[in-house]
């Protein structure tokens, strides 16, 4: 546990080392937040409700989703795939550490940095310009923290899985591009799931990607309360367990066939 705590701190510090990159990122997230907010507000010209979201809910969704974007690393992560391709993974496997727990700890540290320094600043800027809705009940903040943490775990497990493709394919980039496309769309990042046609929303809700963005947003907007809230969080836990289990199984299968070339 102590070891994993230290690994998480390394994950945090790796990204804290580049403040200029953080500033540039905040700027870009903020611009995209403004653009998306105005576009989606355009839908409320003649309507007051879309899929249960009023205009305030939608703008809050936009800025909260921007805050989650880097936190769950939605644009992809190929560090493990690069290590597999270069053979560096051999060093990782020689360590007395489980690669899955190692990357999970590292990623939680990274996510904390990105949430605090890449996620919250654009949200605060959005709050100045737009009328955003904050949770009314103090308990909600706690559930938001739980939900966002689970979102990071689900996301890491999913990213770990598509990185493992590099064990079988010399060029993993096609697989990664498809995985990122599907996850961005079905997580609700591109556009909120309640805006989807109902048949497509049903499909999206049945997939693990909703656990990365849409569920934390629903918790934040207090759209899910009481039994629904418990259900939403349990669904995230279930996806985290399933995907971590899957990642473990696939990793084991990969390690059975792995041949590291001597250097």
């Amino acid at each position: 546990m102590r070891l994993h705590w230290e690994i998480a701190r390394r994950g945090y510090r790796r990204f804290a080392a580049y403040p200029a990159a953080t500033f540039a990122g905040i700027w870009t997230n903020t611009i995209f937040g403004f653009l998306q907010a105005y576009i989606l507000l355009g839908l409320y010209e003649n309507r007051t409700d879309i899929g249960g979201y009023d205009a305030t809910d939608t703008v809050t969704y936009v800025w909260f989703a921007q805050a989650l974007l880097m936190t769950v690393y939605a644009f992809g992560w190929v560090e493990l795939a690069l290590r597999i391709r270069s053979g560096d993974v051999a060093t990782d496997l020689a360590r007395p550490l489980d690669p899955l727990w190692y990357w999970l700890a590292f990623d939680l540290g990274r996510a904390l940095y990105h949430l605090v320094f890449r996620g919250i600043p654009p949200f605060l800027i959005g709050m100045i310009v737009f009328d955003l809705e904050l949770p009314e009940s103090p308990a909600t903040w706690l559930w938001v923290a739980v939900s966002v943490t689970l979102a990071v775990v689900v996301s890491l497990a999913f990213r770990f899985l598509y990185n493992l493709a590099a064990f079988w394919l010399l060029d993993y980039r096609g697989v990664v591009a498809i995985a990122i496309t599907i996850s961005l769309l079905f997580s609700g990042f591109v556009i909120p799931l309640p805006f989807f046609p109902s048949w497509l929303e049903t499909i999206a809700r049945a997939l693990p990607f909703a656990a990365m963005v849409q569920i934390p947003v629903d918790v934040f907007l207090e759209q899910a309360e009481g039994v629904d809230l418990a259900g939403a969080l349990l669904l995230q836990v279930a996806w985290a367990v399933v995907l971590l289990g899957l990642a473990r199984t696939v990793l084991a299968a990969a390690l059975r066939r792995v041949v590291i070339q001597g250097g």
Partner: protein
Amino acid sequence: MADALAVYARLISAQVRSQLQYRVSFALDLAGTFLISFLDFIAVLIIFDNVPELDGWTLHEVAFLYASTCVSFAVVDVVIGHLDLFPRMIREGTFDLILVRPRGTLFQVIASDFAMRKLGKVLQGVIVFVFALGGLEVDWTAGRAAMTLVMVLAGAAIFAAVWVAGATIAFWTVDGGEFTNAFTYGGNFMTQYPISIYGEWVRRFLAYLIPMAFVCYFPSLYILDKPDPLGLPRALQFASPVVAVAAAVVAGVIWRSAVRRYRSVGS
């Protein structure tokens, strides 16, 4: 000029040959960029599943804007998108090599890569163009047809100018690359929708100062014969080529003055 083009053609044909060495990888990459480029259009389709009009624009009209900016942007991305990696040239000191060669610095940086896999994005834009034109009833005069061509070319020139000017930030900080994304990728995203939808200061800054409104919005008002909700002078609808040339000149000046101030890391 002809000489520069000949050099460029030779460098790029070598790039193309090397990229085609691994055909399966190339095909998968092409398919990947093609797929991911549809994400934004899916958003457009989902928006119009909820409302018949967005800020007075129909689905096919927005698709027209979308296709136009996507083709302009994707072509530029193929040719100079690797400017995103320019900070690495500064950090690793490879830009010093460029300084001692007898060609323009910008020319050499641009000629260093040619991302064929991003042609998937161009294809996506063309497909959406066909979709848009299929659902629009435009009175196609010679003027409107010519304006459509001018729009795509001027749009590409504006994106290229913004990309080049934005890349110079690497001369001040090598970690700030993402700053430029707000203008390049952000500009592409912004121009997929009518400019009138954005708040006033966003418009002033990103649509007029950084001239994104001239990429496809103003020419499209003329081509689609739409009233301008902002009531701006009609001459602006024809100004894109002038703005594009001006943007290119400004970008050239920024690049030159940035290079003049460059001090190598010396390692």
